């Protein structure tokens, strides 16, 4: 998916804020941020971490620089196994104008050498918002991999695919996102935030329903 096609599809479908959260990498966040600005929609920086336990954890960040600092650290925790393009496709990095500027050599679908609890802490240390991804899915979801949410962790937001938030997440608010891997999947699930700005801090306040803010999956 090219940066402009992502942003334009989102804008066309009435979406006001998108995030890019590629698997274990932030190589493509900046061109999509540019495309989102062009299309007049908001943008959040993100990475989808795959932890040692094969749990997917979304990290949302407000700033490009913080996202890249975090991504650089994550990259060191990714096993040094080469990508096999015949199986997984080429892992290309493109500009806003779809010029290929790099090809990622390490296989990005691998798990990081990082436990789930450590990953949650690390996201917070970098000023990011940790959100367990598709917790109700049978593959790579928190419940399937770890049985139940770790007791020592608290989340403001938890992503679900369908239905309701599973037990054990306390007062966390569910969000729904498209997890789009193809253009036609953009916007297939959305969340309505009532916030004062499109920042992670405002998302947390919305989760806690402070000052009239709110968050709800669009059904």
């Amino acid at each position, binding site marked *: 998916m090219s940066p402009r096609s992502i942003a334009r599809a989102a804008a066309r479908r009435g979406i006001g804020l998108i995030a890019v959260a590629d698997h274990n990498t932030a190589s493509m966040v900046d061109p999509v941020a540019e495309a989102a600005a062009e299309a007049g929609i908001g943008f959040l920086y993100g990475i989808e971490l795959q932890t040692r336990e094969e749990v997917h954890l979304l990290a949302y960040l407000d700033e490009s620089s913080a996202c890249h600092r975090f991504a650089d650290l994550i990259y060191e925790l990714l096993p040094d196994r080469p990508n096999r393009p015949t199986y997984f496709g080429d892992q290309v990095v493109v500009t806003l104008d779809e010029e290929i500027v790099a090809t990622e050599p390490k296989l990005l679908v691998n798990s990081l050498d990082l436990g789930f609890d450590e990953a949650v802490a690390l996201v917070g240390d970098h000023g990011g918002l940790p959100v367990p991804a598709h917790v109700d899915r049978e593959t790579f979801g928190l419940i399937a991999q*770890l*049985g139940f949410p770790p007791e020592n962790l608290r989340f403001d937001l938890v992503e679900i695919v369908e239905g309701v938030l599973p037990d054990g997440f306390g007062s966390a608010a569910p969000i729904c996102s498209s997890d789009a891997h193809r253009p036609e999947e953009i916007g297939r699930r959305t969340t309505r935030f009532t916030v004062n700005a499109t920042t992670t801090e405002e998302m947390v306040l919305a989760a806690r329903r402070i000052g009239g803010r709110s968050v709800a999956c669009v059904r």
Partner: protein
Amino acid sequence: MKLTEIIDRLSLDVFTPVPDPEADVGGGYVGDLLSNVLASAMPGSLWITIQHHANVVAVAQVTGLSAVLIVDGKRPDDAMREQARTSGVVLLGSTESAFEVAGRLYGLLVTER
């Protein structure tokens, strides 16, 4: 077979105290998806896994497993050991793979019987 005998025969590392050395191990279960272990492992089994998240301790406890055997040379951190110790869950270790350990355990519990 007694848990202590299995520890001895398979030369396992022992990361926590063994509260009941006479405990009998009825079988084994291999799995890294904790939801699957919760749903399918039989009480009294020895659970073989590469997972060493703290939730493993809780799953072992509620499922009534005799011990958790962490393979591939992976090791529990101090927090996990402490949680296991206070919960009475036995954590064991092996540098061998799940395939090798499960094969040898099957030999002890099933083939040699």
